[in-house]
């Protein structure tokens, strides 16, 4: 909608080759309009270069990766799949191959994403639409937990999953939490992730769910719905964007996690997710770090795909989740 000043359009001095209604100002304006595009794509280039570098390197033979810059492929393109072969071959150890670790990652990530999603949704709904004592207080407390550093929670939780929790009283030992011997099993990993993901989940979902129109709930109540029904039939379907947004967050976080997985799985390599496998790839003394190029690319492929897939929701969900009031 370029503003065309009729006076100027009709003004004398308009040379013939200038189409009417396209005065100098308008053209300048149009060029100016294109400027953001250039700047933006400049930034995009800067942002993508590092990743591109790794991608290219992953196709280069070891000695070249270690001795010349990846951009030199433009000059001599000697590309190979060797790195990928190395990564996908079980590489000696009788641990499962990359595909196996991929499944392990799945086995951890899926429950660690879905279950907190459900639980957080329950809680968020309760905080938003139910009435009970200390509602505000509890919610605020939960939000506060967002900032607890996780590193220190690891050991207590590991102890819990290995030995349970016991207290001694009246000369007897009572078990507060059973000795389930979960350490080394994927279960312990995603259980931990559920706990760690919960505050953000509740925070995001609450902001969204609390934003749903009140009279929808009332209409439903009058139509004969009780809280569970309202939750399943109204709130869940209406909250898809927020759910997807959190799902992506949690998925990325869990999929990319190394610390929790390696701590809880400890010596059991067979259950190790990809990130843990990557850490061992580069050899006892890191001499094989060129393999990481391929491996890293393999490991980011899925999350990136997931992100691109659910992006639309992501934005909507986060928006509603954040911009409230």
């Amino acid at each position, binding site marked *: 909608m370029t503003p065309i000043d009729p006076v100027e359009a009709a003004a004398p001095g308009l040379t013939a080759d200038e189409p009417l209604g396209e005065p100098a100002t308008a053209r300048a304006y149009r060029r100016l309009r294109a400027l953001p595009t250039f700047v933006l794509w400049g930034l995009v280039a800067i942002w993508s270069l590092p990743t591109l570098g790794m991608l290219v390197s992953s196709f280069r033979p070891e000695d070249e990766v270690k001795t010349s810059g990846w951009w030199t492929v433009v000059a001599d393109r000697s590309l190979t799949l060797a790195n990928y072969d190395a990564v996908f071959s079980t590489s000696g150890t009788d641990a499962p191959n990359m595909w196996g670790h991929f499944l392990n990652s799945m086995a951890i990530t899926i429950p660690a994403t879905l279950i907190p999603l459900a639980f957080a949704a329950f809680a968020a709904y309760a905080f938003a639409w139910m009435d009970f004592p200390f509602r505000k207080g509890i919610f605020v407390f939960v939000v506060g937990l967002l900032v607890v550093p996780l590193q220190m929670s690891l050991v207590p939780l590991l102890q819990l999953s290995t030995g349970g929790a016991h207290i001694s009283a009246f000369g007897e030992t009572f078990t507060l939490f059973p000795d389930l011997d979960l350490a080394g099993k994927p279960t312990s990993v995603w259980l931990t992730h559920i706990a760690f993901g919960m505050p953000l989940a509740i925070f995001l979902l609450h902001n969204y769910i609390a934003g749903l129109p009140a009279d929808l709930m009332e209409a439903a109540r009058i139509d004969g719905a009780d809280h569970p029904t309202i939750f399943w039939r109204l709130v869940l379907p209406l909250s898809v964007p927020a759910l997807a947004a959190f799902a992506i967050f949690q998925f990325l976080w869990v999929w990319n996690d190394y610390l929790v997985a390696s701590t809880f799985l400890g010596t059991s390599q067979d259950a190790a997710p990809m990130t843990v496998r990557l850490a061992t790839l580069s050899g006892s003394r890191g001499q094989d770090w060129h393999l990481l190029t391929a491996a890293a690319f393999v490991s980011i492929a899925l999350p*990136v795909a997931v992100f691109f897939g659910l992006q639309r929701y992501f934005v909507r969900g986060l928006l509603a989740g954040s911009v409230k009031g």
Partner: protein
Amino acid sequence: MARLLTTLLQVVALVGGTIGLFVAANAVVDLARTRFTLYSVLAGAVVGVPVGALANSGGWFKGGALWPVGGAIVGAGIGALRARFRQPSPERARRIPDRWRPAIFLFPALSFLFVGLVVPAVRTIYLSFRSRRGEESVGLENYRTILGDSDVFSLDNAGAIFSSRLFLIAAVILVVAVAYVVLRGPVRGRGLDAGGPVPVVSLSTTGALFVLAMMGALRGVIWNNLFWVVFVTGFSTVLGLAIAALADRAAGESVAKSLIFMPMAISFVGASVIWRFVYAFVPAGGDQIGLLNGVWVGAGGEPQAWIQNRPWNSLFLIFILIWIQTGFAMVLLSAAIKGVPHELVEAAQVDGASEGQIFWRVTLPSIRPTLVVVVTTLIVTVLKVYDIVKVMTNGEFGTSVIANQMFQEAFIGRELGKGSTLAVLLFIAVLPLMAFNVARVRREGVA
């Protein structure tokens, strides 16, 4: 393939099961309205199971399910008796479901939070007052050692800040800015226009420069955390905002935004490899394999060991996090910008405001809430930063941050006491933020 199947089955069963329990629990309390007796019996049984288990001094399932089942039976019995003798009026019976429902909805989430975060947090605080492995109490000793450790916190040559060139530049800019504002004089009754672009921009520049000056002078993990917070938060937000604003008017918006966001999807192991190819260093003479050095040397510079040379090496690590977080800020902010009502912008256009003015005077104010969210979230993330430093330098070359120091102490040095202390320090650093968050949640009100 079989494993994929078992995995999926397992997941389905788990999710189905947990949700099933939730549904069942709701169903039970609903019974209170119609069949109070049955409700009472079932509820009794449900409560009985854990009580029975807890009562088993041998451990929950020692001696089979005897104790839990026993508890269930006893509980059921009690429930039956209660129903028999304390049958409430239908009036009150009808209210029972609503009384228990919040508990049912909250229990799963809160139980996980309690076990996973609250208990460990409390334990950490406790440990921070105990000795190496928590054997005995040492009072504030840990805090004294930690804060006394010059690697953690040191004010030596803080004076150097004010003699540094950066500081002078900052000062000059500040003076100029103030002069500009004052000379420009009062603006249409708005008094001295401190909210305008010029003062704000110059002020923030001054701030950034000053922190840089501090960076040049001050050593210590805690300071590093501060620098991380300032730069990551600042740049991620500003860049995110800029990109969001640009993308709003540029071609190929969604693609561009996706590419900018992509780093968020990359694990830190991946990131470390990626950035190895940027910062890698080869002594002069050899071919550079790092992009940065490639460019640098190409421009005729001496190859630099970017992530080794203090004090600026931290900046290069910091940029990695900026690279990751900008996408996050951008997504939120661009969403917010699109949320700004068109009438507002058009009204401003009619009033003859320039694009810049519109952005500054209309768009920015109306996306303030989002900005606040972005900034607070970023700060929290940055304060807890760990992985990048871990994979890039393992905290060597003076790049360590609190979280790393904590890991170092607690896991490698096996100094649980000191590790916990650092964790507590992190809490404390975050507290004001928490308060702010809380206040904000309060203001928005729990709908």
